[in-house]
């Protein structure tokens, strides 16, 4: 049923051969096609600009007031590329291998290899655009090792890599807007997908300033709408990050793959109270020099929390550097999922620090002794400042308090090798799709994937679909446009009619608690079943007792939030279903029933070496599971070990 369209032949030749076999659209005919790009993060901006350069008409959409504010802007650490500039043994194959292994063998080999292959072009492109990457004194690009990689392949721009990459893509986008080849719609939220005879032919948007609900037609639709981590309420995502575009497309026929694969990032600033609206990431690069520890005993931890003793009272032998102890070869640089789970474990044991006890230390004392405060400041200054700003604690003087937080969603819309979803003409790029990171994403690989998809994959693959369409413009007057528009309008009115006693945030916070508790860092059958019931109950509560104020014909942030939370309430249940189905541990998905004797994640390749792609079947109908088996011809499946 599910055809991944992975080309035959040796791994290293697949993409070149495939590019040759894809149909081309004649340059003179490209302007006869209109492509809708939803989202202007790394994936969307790069795609919109590149497609417009080729000659297509592009309409691009984002919900912020400018395309430059997409959440890609917040990425701190860096972007990987197999340049091997450091002569330390990196190669396309090694980046491929690390990504497949890091993803715990739950990603498609061919896609990942292609990602590693085009990674080198990304850096060239960005430099040509004027992206100011970090450089060495000789004037060449600097690299660092990131997230436990054994080679230095990460390119960065201080702690603001995402910002600089996005501004590069935004500049390419601006150039096309200026030429009139891209029409940009800011403050527009996509609320539905229009399909005609099963093909994607347009979208319905709400103008977030005037409330106008409008149809836009196109020969193809690209969803580049980012991740859905905000289903947990608290995450490192921006406040507006949502699943709405992807979810509505799912309800129109796009399968949703591996929804339960969530990445929980180990180093975030801990929650301070109920008012908390989001969580701030402290870049993973900090683990290169910081040492993670908690007090050795529960008693010491209690005394510390109560302020009966100070941090400096704890001698070396009172401290448990648990990552260094358990994983001597990787130490503090174990992958994110392992670091996160271990933090949860020591906190659950009662050895957590800080007033709430829900945190561990990330300590720079040794690094400062070894390198000097100035060197540490040069490397991490902006992160230290940010931490100081938020917590009022000086990390040069006392260890940082950190705790895991929801950060990235590996799951997303199912796509084939061409990045097309199960709806012909509908594509998904960047974090919005499921394709390259398996069950766990390596640091600095999301930026790489977003730009790979947008600059170097979609410009080739989309032609193959368009070339088969003929040149007729999409019929604006087709009844499906008005029908879908009306559905959206009715849904908006339904939301605005809700006048209960709860706020949308009340419900969202509750959903977040359920997801975090039962579908977070560790999951088990009983908990997941409980969560499913609670989510269904919460959905009823939302539709009967929430309040949504104001009217449609104005800027209405209550309405925007309500629509997004309504979709999260549906997605949450699918995530739980997916987690229930996957009775194995892999990557970010840890099923307590499936662990090794040492408490590490235990995969079950015999039964779960597949992508779970879910098909929507109508309101309150159970979704149907389709399996795409994963074949590994170039790597040997091993149990990940970081001991």
């Amino acid at each position: 049923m599910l055809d991944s369209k992975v080309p035959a032949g040796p791994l290293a030749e697949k993409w070149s051969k495939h590019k040759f076999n894809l149909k081309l659209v004649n340059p003179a005919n490209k302007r006869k096609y209109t492509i809708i790009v939803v989202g202007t993060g790394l994936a969307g901006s790069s795609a919109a600009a590149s497609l417009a350069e080729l000659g297509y008409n592009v309409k691009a959409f984002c919900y912020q007031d400018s395309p430059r504010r997409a959440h890609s802007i917040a990425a701190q650490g860096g972007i990987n590329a197999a340049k091997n500039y450091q002569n330390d043994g990196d190669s396309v194959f090694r980046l491929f291998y690390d990504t497949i292994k890091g993803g715990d063998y739950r990603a498609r080999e061919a896609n990942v290899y292609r990602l590693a292959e085009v990674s080198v072009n990304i850096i060239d492109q960005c430099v040509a655009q004027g992206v100011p990457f970090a450089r060495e004194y000789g004037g060449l690009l600097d690299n660092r090792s990131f997230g436990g990689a054994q080679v230095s392949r990460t390119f960065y721009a201080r702690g603001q890599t995402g910002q600089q990459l996005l501004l590069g893509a935004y500049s390419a986008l601006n150039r096309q807007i200026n030429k009139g080849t891209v029409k940009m719609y800011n403050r527009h939220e996509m609320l539905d997908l229009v399909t005609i005879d099963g093909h994607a032919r347009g979208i319905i948007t709400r103008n977030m300033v005037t409330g106008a609900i409008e149809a836009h037609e196109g020969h193809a639709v690209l969803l580049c709408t980012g991740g859905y981590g905000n289903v947990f309420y608290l995450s490192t995502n921006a406040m507006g990050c949502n699943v709405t575009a992807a979810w509505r497309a799912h309800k129109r026929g796009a399968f949703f793959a591996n929804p339960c694969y969530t990445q929980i990032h180990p180093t975030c600033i801990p929650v301070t109270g109920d008012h908390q609206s989001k969580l701030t990431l402290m870049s993973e690069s900090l683990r290169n020099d910081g040492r993670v520890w908690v007090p050795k005993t529960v008693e010491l931890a209690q005394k510390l929390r109560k302020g009966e003793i100070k941090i400096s009272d704890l001698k070396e032998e009172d401290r448990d550097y648990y990552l260094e102890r358990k994983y001597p070869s990787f130490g503090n640089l174990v992958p994110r999922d392992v670091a996160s789970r271990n933090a949860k474990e020591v906190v659950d044991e009662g050895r957590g620090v800080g007033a709430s006890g829900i945190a561990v230390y990330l300590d720079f004392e040794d690094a400062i002794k070894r390198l000097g405060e100035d060197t540490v400041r040069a490397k991490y200054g902006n992160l230290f400042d940010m931490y100081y700003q938020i917590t009022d604690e000086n990390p040069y003087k006392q260890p940082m308090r950190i705790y895991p937080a929801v950060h990235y969603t590996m799951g997303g819309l199912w796509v084939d090798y061409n990045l097309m979803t199960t709806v012909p003409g509908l594509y998904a790029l960047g974090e919005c799709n499921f394709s390259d990171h398996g069950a766990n994403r390596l640091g600095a690989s999301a930026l790489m994937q977003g730009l790979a998809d947008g600059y170097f994959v979609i410009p080739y693959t989309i032609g193959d679909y368009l070339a088969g369409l003929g040149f007729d413009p999409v019929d604006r007057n087709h009844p499906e446009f008005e029908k879908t528009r009306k559905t959206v309008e009715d849904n908006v009115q339904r939301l605005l009619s809700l006048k209960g006693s709860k706020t949308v945030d009340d419900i969202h916070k509750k959903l977040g608690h359920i997801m975090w508790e039962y579908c977070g860092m560790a999951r088990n059958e009983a908990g997941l079943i409980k969560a499913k019931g609670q989510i269904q109950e919460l959905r009823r509560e939302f539709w009967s007792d929430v309040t949504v104020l104001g009217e449609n014909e104005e800027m209405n942030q209550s309405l925007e939030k309500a629509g997004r939370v309504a979709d999260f309430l549906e997605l949450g249940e699918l995530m739980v279903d997916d987690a229930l189905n996957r009775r194995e541990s892999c990557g970010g998905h840890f099923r307590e029933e499936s662990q090794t004797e040492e408490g590490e994640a235990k995969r079950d390749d015999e039964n779960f070496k597949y992508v779970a792609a879910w098909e929507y079947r109508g309101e309150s109908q159970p979704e149907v599971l389709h399996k795409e088996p994963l074949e590994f011809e170039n790597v040997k499946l091993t149990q990940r070990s970081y001991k």
Partner: protein
Amino acid sequence: MSGNMNLTLKVWRQKNDKTRGKFVTYQATNISPDMSFLEMLDVVNEELVRKGEDPIHFDHDCREGICGMCSLHINGRPHGPKQGTTTCQLHMRSFHDGQTIVIEPWRSAAFPVIKDLAVDRSAFDRIQQAGGYINVNTGGVPDANAIPIPKKVADEAFESATCIACGACVAACKNASAMLFVSAKISQYALLPQGQTERYSRAQAMVAQMDAEGFGSCTNTGACEAECPVGIKLTNIARMNREYFTAKIFKQEEPH
């Protein structure tokens, strides 16, 4: 909790750009010093919603000080009393119990109010569209290390490139000048070898668009630099003027 504060807020409320706005007073009670300024507004908004009143609208997204979406004039200062921070990174420990806080939108003709505290900054995008890029297509570019750039130059270009397009510089300026914002982009490219071929036409095109948007002129008061949350320096404006006048005198390239 001990240390929590009660505050009086005077907030600018305005239904849309066609109606007149006014200050409305609200009480913010039991505010923790650990809250961010926007979280404090969230708390006030939750109470408003519970009472059936329209919440205060303000722009925000990343809440990490990087997307540039948040704004707010707080007690007469863009992004509030603390230097070098955005409103979303401003914490309530910068205020004290019993204080009155006046909250207004950016005030500039080029940034019309959309609702309450949210304004339209699309003029900034249009300036960037006029020339804030290097003319390269995807693909066919040289190897990244084929263009060595001295670290000092790269670092300086980075300092300029770090502007978040928040608009505080405009809001801080008595002339509503956008020079700091525009000069940051022009400087980034003027410094880098990749930006050389079009450096003069770029300066001309961006400045022309800036003027067309109705931003005021620069009289060197330096309020912009003082309020910029990411430390964009006045030296960028000097560089931009050099680029612009060189372009005018030598007519090196025509704007396109």
